[in-house]
């Protein structure tokens, strides 16, 4: 792995020496485009690590963007919007947990229900003509933001970006180093081993799926309140599904998924920049296709080769009769 990192640093350095402006722009956009995908992938990771396949991430993103936008627009307060987004995301998590953990419904169907419900409700209640008071401003971190290249790429971002990045690292350490993570992984791999060790499988599944939903809500807030500043029908545009591909590409590891997401973001940022610089002439729709094409390619090449949590997708029944 380190070899790749050196190669990437070398490539950036070369690009920077030829065209510093474009290089910085591409790198910064990679983070901007990649971050929501990375955060959405965390939703998938937290759920699958506990044995719940979540294809309802898309619905969570859509629901939370919707509530984030309209609560912020109606109250003319971004913080209320942020809180509403997180809470509504958690509610979609609760719904998924109810369907899959308590009622033991097929997890793919349960996720589809979340998605359809989100699409239907947000379309039905959508009204034109509302706007946000502002979007979350960029915070330049004193000192750090002055560093050439890195300063612009990492330390001149909005608050949710910082918070999201920190949470991804927190999640990484939590999964691999804490009792919670050990128990979560045990439940995702072999729930009856956890049960016989005195761990409540149902409780842990509920907790994790709801927290994951809240994380998805934060992602929705990022999209509408920090990145775009508006909301439209079908606003999430498949990011929740792309996030699943990123989760697999990153092997259910938060850091892996973050790198994978930045790679996706980079592909899009690069294509954009090439077009802006007039170096290539690709019609816009093709550029916009890029994340979806990459998703297909990544899944085609990694499917079957990587191994996810063994018990993901299976409802857990106690041996009770």
């Amino acid at each position: 792995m380190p070899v790749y990192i050196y190669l990437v640093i070398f490539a950036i350095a070369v690009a920077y020496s030829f065209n510093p402006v474009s290089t910085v722009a591409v790198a910064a956009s990679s983070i901007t485009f990649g971050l929501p995908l990375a955060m959405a992938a965390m939703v998938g990771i937290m759920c699958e690590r506990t044995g719940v396949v979540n294809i309802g991430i898309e619905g969570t993103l859509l629901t939370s963007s919707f509530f984030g936008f309209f609560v912020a627009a109606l109250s003319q307060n971004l913080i209320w919007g942020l809180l509403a987004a997180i809470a509504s995301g958690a509610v979609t998590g609760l719904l998924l947990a109810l369907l899959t953990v308590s009622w033991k419904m097929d997890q793919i169907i349960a996720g589809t229900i979340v998605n359809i419900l989100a699409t239907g409700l947000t379309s039905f209640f959508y009204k034109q003509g509302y706007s946000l008071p502002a979007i979350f401003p960029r915070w330049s971190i004193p000192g750090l933001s002055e560093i050439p290249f890195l300063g612009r790429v990492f330390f001149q971002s909005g608050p949710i970006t910082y918070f999201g990045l920190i949470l991804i690292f927190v999640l990484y350490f939590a999964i691999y180093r804490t009792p919670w993570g050990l128990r979560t992984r045990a439940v995702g791999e072999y729930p009856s081993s956890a049960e016989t060790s005195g761990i409540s499988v149902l409780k842990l599944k509920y907790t994790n799926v709801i927290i994951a939903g809240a994380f998805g809500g934060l992602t929705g807030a990022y999209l509408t309140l920090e990145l775009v500043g508006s909301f439209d029908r079908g606003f999430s545009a498949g990011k929740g599904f792309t996030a699943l591909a990123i989760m697999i590409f990153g092997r259910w590891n938060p850091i892996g998924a973050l790198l994978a997401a930045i790679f996706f973001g980079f592909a899009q940022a690069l294509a954009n920049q090439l077009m802006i610089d007039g170096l290539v002439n690709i019609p816009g729709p093709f550029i916009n296709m890029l994340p979806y094409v990459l998703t297909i390619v990544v899944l085609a090449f990694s499917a079957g080769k990587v191994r996810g949590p063994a018990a993901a997708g299976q409802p857990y029944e106690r041996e009770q009769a």
Partner: protein
Amino acid sequence: MATLLQVKNLTKSFGSVIANNDISFEVDAGEIVALLGENGAGKSTLVKSVFGLLRPDQGEIYIDGKQMAPGDTAGVIASGVGMVHQHFKLVPVMSVTENIILGDEPKNGIFINIKKAEQTVRALSEKFGLEVDPTAIIEDLPVGTQQRVEILKALSKDVRLLIFDEPTAVLTPQETDELILVIKNLASLGVGVIVITHKLREVMALADRVVVLREGKVVGTTTPKESNESGLAQMMVGRSVVLEVDKGVARPGKAVLSVKGLEVFDDRKLLAVKGVDLEVRSGEILGIAGVEGNGQRELVEAICGMRMREKGEVLVSGLPTKDMHPHAVHEAGVSHIPEDREKHGLVSSYSIADNLILNQFDQEPFARGWFRNMGATRENANLLVKKFDIRTTSAAALASSLSGGNKQKVVIARELSQDLQVLVAAQPTRGVDVGSIEFIHKQLIAARDKGAGVLLVSAELDEIISLSDRIAVMSGGKIVAIVDSKDADRNHIGRLMAGLKE
């Protein structure tokens, strides 16, 4: 000695079936009690009730004289009861240490203190003489070692009563002997032990006291000194049982099944069968002895056309058979009693009658043109249900309504009621009661005497030795030896199974 566990008048039923009927027994500190009984006698239900995984309908459980609340697993664990499960409760992708500390992790701030945990595991494994590498990943360990981890996991919680559920089912004879020493050592340290088993030999070697269960009731309590194997078997089954299989001399003819240089991958794409040559002659039973997971499953599946053959060929009566084409292999005259009858042997949502013609539904007389002949299907079913003593109310009942033994009889009835040259029987008596085992053994010998070549794969070494005419020992994906069953010696075969050189 002090009474550790006391079970009083325990009753537990599932619907109309009474699994445990008014059971009472005791275990003292330092005592090894064997719970002996057939499959379905209620042993597992009983210990699950003791462990709090099930709620008994009636009865009381006392640990150290203190009454336990029904269904309170955490309370039972806190009172010092541990269980070594038959299907290990270990997470395959995690390390030994992680598995042992799961649920009770030593902490350093909010993080797990893995160094300290590893030291604890090391200390524990030295104290009880159970050698294991704390950093090893479970799925890389042999089954015997995994069981050691399972035992250590139980011991890490400071147990005074340890329950073993069918502990030797997956072990080689040598590993079994080691386990017996381990259990005796634990008892000498004052731990009370309950061993659930249906293997008479182990009961005789291990137990201080034997509690025999039949149909949910305690039918007797005895000690190995006061009883013997056939006496225990009689108590267990309720009638006298022939432990020895009665069979005539084999009259082997020409080779009907030849396997040449066969190489097969397992599900993880690792080579599981590493160049096997075999010949089964008509009128003989060739038994394959081996610890499970040494390539037997892959070998059987490759022979029957269910798994890709990487190299080599399989000939039936001299003719090569098609790879990955189970129907064609069946047409060539190979009948197959699969290891996993639920998955490969039956469609449990179909009727017994349909299951009895699963591989010939499209042939005369069960089909007429494009349509099925329900009359012929019914007649065939009624005939076979009678002939093979399948215990059911009707042949139209769903296969899922049958007990394990009767399901197996359906599979055997279907496979043996056709013209066959080769019978491949994988674990034919697994999960089957003693009465059905006797019947199934007779059917296998009858197939042999009618001139079929029988390839028998079983994890039960006793079954292999008593049924086979020749025994091939499989270890690490290879046939390491073929011996005549007349010269078979348990210990010798056990060493070969474990991969030891002579």
